[in-house]
């Protein structure tokens, strides 16, 4: 999983059915038939969702042509969560530094005011 795939991960996670599939797979590998059961969806529709998840690196498919059981790969989700956190922390961290700078500037100004 390279960081270049993060945008695929975001797109894949945007859909509630796909998130539900990931939750299902967290309990163990499953075939398309198994996954489709609790959803009111055809197997081809589920297969399409699996394809998106696979392209994002969120699942791996078995080599067995008939069954192709799907297995969860959680690492890209962690990477996606980290990216968002980094973006937020960049600005929050910057503004923490700005807080300190403003405090120092106000102190300097006060000293000037009292000395003049």
């Amino acid at each position, binding site marked *: 999983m390279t960081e270049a795939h993060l945008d695929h991960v975001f797109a894949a*996670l945007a859909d509630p059915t796909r998130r539900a599939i*990931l939750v299902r797979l967290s309990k163990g590998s499953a075939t398309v038939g198994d996954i489709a059961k609790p959803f009111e969806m055809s197997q081809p529709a589920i297969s399409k969702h699996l394809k998106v998840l696979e392209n994002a690196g969120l699942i791996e498919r078995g080599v067995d042509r008939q069954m192709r059981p799907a297995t969860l790969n959680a690492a890209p*989700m962690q990477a996606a969560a980290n990216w968002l956190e980094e973006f937020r922390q960049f*600005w929050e961290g910057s503004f923490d530094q*700005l*807080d300190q*700078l403003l*405090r120092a500037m106000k102190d300097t*100004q006060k000293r000037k005011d009292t000395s003049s």
Partner: protein
Amino acid sequence: MSDTPIYILERTFDAPRELVWRTFTESELLSHWYGPGVETVIHELNVTPGGVWLNEMKMGENSYYQRAEYLEVEAPGRLVWLHSTADAEWNIADNPMMPNWPKVLMTVVTFEENDGKTNMRLTWEPHESSPEEIEVFSQAIAGLDQGWGKGMEMLAELLESLQSG
């Protein structure tokens, strides 16, 4: 377009807004706070409509470049610029981490003073972005705003159960 996703960040600074304005518009002050824990070098800062802010952040051996172009400058209350990642020659470039991140984000910052404190409101929205870029940005800010809401809760549980299992 009314459905363009917008990210909003609000923060109150314990200082009058003239002072806060200076920290956004004077090179020495801006480089002091912008970029947490990194060395920030401002190569150019011309805070006038059409002027640019060329910013380098040094992280060890690597440098990360940003280019901003100012659209509106109304001291001390409002600042609008187009924010983008740049290459070392200051051309607008893809974000190395996220190829489909919007190349240009319109950034609007407003300052309102209230009882000696300054309420800052900062918004970002994709500027002339492709549908893919807008989609990625929507996903990201949905996550930033609500921790991805229900979806993220599910994923957090999921990650936890994987770690404990």
